[in-house]
């Protein structure tokens, strides 16, 4: 077995040193009747070639984002990642290391986490950021818990245009934890109504309001006024961003007064991966830092006075605080942070803003083309790289028909809100730098032929 270095002779020699006759003597604590006699019912060991054939066959059954005109978004986006990013994250010293508990020999990991935290703080316009969460949705749920700790209240209000999967993730945790939750109804046509509804729901019990921008339909929101309203009521504003590239083009939540910003970082450095692993960005104000969940990297000095980095404020964490910890998280998304940080470093200010501008321009171009299609309506007043359209009939069926014509057209709202009949004719369409004019023309053609 190629992964196992011991030879039969080694095993014999080692058992002798240990002083037992057989390896099962080391399993003596396992009740005899429970020790498996033979092998579990799975195939036997295979060489690389066989494994590649089996998995290659499964992989070949999927249609990939690169092989067709591709417009699927709604919380995960197809972007181009430079080859150097994937090369670097595969370096043994990054890939095969552990959480940097021994900082003297983990400065590589720690320094990129410090760079990551700074980049996230800058991007979101916040003061501090942590060393990542699993993804945006779990980060949002943690943000709600954090707001409860900060405000010592237990009621959250979720905007209706929050991604339903984020809503469900928060709801599940809130329900289990026994917290109160108000989930508003989606409002694709009049996005500003959603903010009004949130504002109306704020009361003295409210711990936090959770608003996504661009929202799940792609609308951009100015959060300045509602931030003030929430804060005046003693509540926190949690802003959610599912397309982090947008921050290259729009005013960041931090500049609009958000208390906590949670974002899905997948767009930068991380591929689609059918939903994971991704990387959750989590930023807040300095004053809340000790209530923040997740790992934090901080600057310090070593015994010779040289700058160095360590994991810090671990007194918040489960391995120290146990049941009093700020969250139960111990693994973060280390390697995806690294991918994010490298890609963001390559982009820099100039590159990120250009990237965002291209995304926006391409989306505008598609919106203009679609506005010309009979029976199709673009719903958004504003958007970044994704918007909602209304089609005549069942959007899910349109998407299926378009898929058969080789175009992956987007996410039908019905997939996200299966019980909202009113959203049945709505389709979310994303458009990034990977989409060409030809792709957009193909979209229009396939759509026209599928109505």
């Amino acid at each position, binding site marked *: 077995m190629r*992964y*196992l270095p*011991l030879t039969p002779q*080694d095993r014999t020699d080692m058992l002798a040193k*240990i002083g037992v006759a057989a*390896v099962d003597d*080391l*399993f003596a*604590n*396992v*009740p005899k009747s*429970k*020790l*498996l006699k033979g092998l579990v019912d799975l*195939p036997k060991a295979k060489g690389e070639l066989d494994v590649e054939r089996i*998995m290659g066959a499964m*992989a070949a*059954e999927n*249609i*990939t984002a*690169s092989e067709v005109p591709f417009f699927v978004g709604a919380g*995960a986006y197809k972007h181009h990642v430079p080859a150097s990013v994937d090369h670097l994250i595969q370096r043994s*010293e990054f*890939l*095969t*290391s*552990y959480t940097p508990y*021994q900082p003297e020999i983990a*400065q*590589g990991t720690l320094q990129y986490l410090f760079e990551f935290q700074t980049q996230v703080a800058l991007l979101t316009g916040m003061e501090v950021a942590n060393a990542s969460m*699993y993804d945006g949705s779990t980060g949002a749920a943690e943000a709600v818990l954090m707001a409860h700790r900060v405000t010592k209240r237990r009621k959250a209000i979720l905007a209706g245009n929050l991604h339903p999967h984020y809503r469900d993730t928060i709801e599940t945790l809130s329900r*289990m934890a026994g917290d109160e939750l108000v989930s508003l109804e989606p409002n694709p046509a009049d996005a500003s109504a959603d903010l009004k509804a949130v504002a109306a729901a704020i009361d003295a019990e409210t711990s936090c309001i959770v608003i996504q921008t661009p929202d799940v339909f792609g609308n*951009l929101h*100015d959060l300045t006024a509602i931030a003030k309203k929430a804060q005046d009521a003693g509540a926190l504003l949690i802003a959610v961003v599912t397309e982090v590239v947008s921050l290259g083009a*729009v005013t960041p939540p931090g500049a609009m007064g958000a208390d906590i910003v949670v974002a899905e970082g997948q767009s930068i450095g991380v591929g689609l991966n059918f*939903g*994971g*692993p991704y990387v959750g960005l989590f930023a807040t104000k300095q004053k809340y830092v000790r209530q923040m969940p997740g790992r934090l990297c*901080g600057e310090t000095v070593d*015994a010779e006075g040289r700058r*160095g980095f360590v994991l810090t404020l671990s*007194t918040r964490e489960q*391995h120290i605080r146990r*049941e009093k*910890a700020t969250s139960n998280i*111990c693994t973060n*998304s*280390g*390697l995806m942070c690294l991918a994010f940080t490298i890609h963001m*470093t*390559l*982009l*820099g200010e100039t*590159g990120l803003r*250009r990237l965002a501008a291209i995304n*926006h321009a*391409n989306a505008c171009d598609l919106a203009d083309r679609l506005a010309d299609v009979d029976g199709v309506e673009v719903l958004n007043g504003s958007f*970044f790289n994704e918007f909602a359209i209304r089609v005549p009939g069942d959007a899910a069926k349109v*998407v299926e028909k378009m898929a058969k014509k080789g175009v992956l057209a987007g996410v039908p709202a019905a997939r996200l809100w*299966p019980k909202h009949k009113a959203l049945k004719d709505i389709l979310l369409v994303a458009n990034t730098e990977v989409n060409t004019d030809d792709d957009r023309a193909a979209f229009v053609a396939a759509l026209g032929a599928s109505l």
Partner: protein
Amino acid sequence: IEEALIFEIGRPEVTGVDLPEPKKVKSRLGKLARKEPIDLPGLSEPETMRHYVRLSQKNFGIDTGLFPLGSCTMKHNARLNEKMARLPGFGDIHPLQPVSTVQGALELIDRLADYLKELTGMPAVAMSPKAGAHGELAGMMAIKAALEAKGEGHRKIVLVPESAHGTNPATAALIGFEVKAVPAQADGTVHVSDVKAALTPDVAAIMLTNPNTCGIFEKEIVEIAKAIHDAGAYFYCDGANFNAIVGKARPGDLGVDAMHINLHKTFSTPHGGGGPGAGPVVLSERLAAFVPYPFIRAGKGFSLVEEGGKLEKGEMPFGRMSAFHGQMGMFVRALAYMLSHGADGMKQASEDAVLNANYIRASLADLMSLPFGNQPCMHEALFDDEWLKNTGVSTLDFAKAMIDEGYHPMTMYFPLVVHGAMLIEPTESESKASLDLFIATLRDLALSAKRGQVERFKNAPFHAPRRRLDETRAARNPVLRWTRPQAYAEAAE
């Protein structure tokens, strides 16, 4: 050679990504178009490569040396698995594509689920949890949902041994359970009598790690499970140490109701400096109904059951753990690991992991003290600091001195129940030659400590990218991000 921060060497006008001019369009950003610069530094591609390559050189990984971090299971990360995860058919598909266009991906998840069920002897598995602690959470949620479905929401107590991972009590507390400690006895295990004594009618569950964090298989586990079940409670097993018994014994056969599996420990998906992990949780018949959304149903093709989807009789998903389907990238790697090892190789891997740990135990037992006596351990050997008494050398010092010898330290001061704990897990990936060298080094260090050569330990490491770092200073005045030096900012005005 020191490596500056990107903020110190980058320049906003430099970019390492060439992008075309955007189309000229009428902006739809409205008044939300960004006005202020982000102040992000950029580096050209050659600078970026060198920066991160040089940072990597300050790291230690499995590929660079023995990494005996107990309970963390630093085993070989095969590059075949990385290659498979990068097949476009897995890496370049979107979680919300039409289900008809991702049949192979669903098949892969379903296959992995089947393998996990077979290896654990459990009938169901929730695939979406994103890490071990997240899997724990899912498992405890399933228990809570089951209790509520039975109208037993009054059960609020969760029993947790003192030796447990901190995540166990943290998880229980997170969803409103109260934690009650169960003691371990002198042999390092939890005795059924102590469990029985703690079993009041308001006990919801026990959370037990097995093999436990002392590296010992809980020998009364079957009895404990029975006692728990008889009391109407559930048995959550922390699967962090499942790697010791894969192919040797099945949690389902032992009476476990829920157990998360750290794919990054047991099935070797890379730790990546702290993630990503993946924490599918297997569930017994008693909990199978509560598998959260989304889940896969195999039939004619594979369908994905999401909120609002058609449920079969008895299915009662308790909710959703995260936006999408879980850590697909890790699923691919874990399945590649399983296919490569096979039923035979996985059993052998468990045996070799246990053999390696016992070889270390047996080879150091004369010099270093074992808190529970010189009995066989499972995949990790636990020493305490009794043997360092009066040497002036602490567990921490000893660990840091290992760095100078080219090793990553073992896990220190965990489990908390053992004084100055040193938890050594070599895994099956180490050769005998490697272990012999490691043992010789540890013996040399141990003798050195006993001889009073304190200097070798007190200020160690001497040969690392950094000497000991001041953690107190970092925590007292946390500097969590770079800020432009004041002088510079003024000069720029």
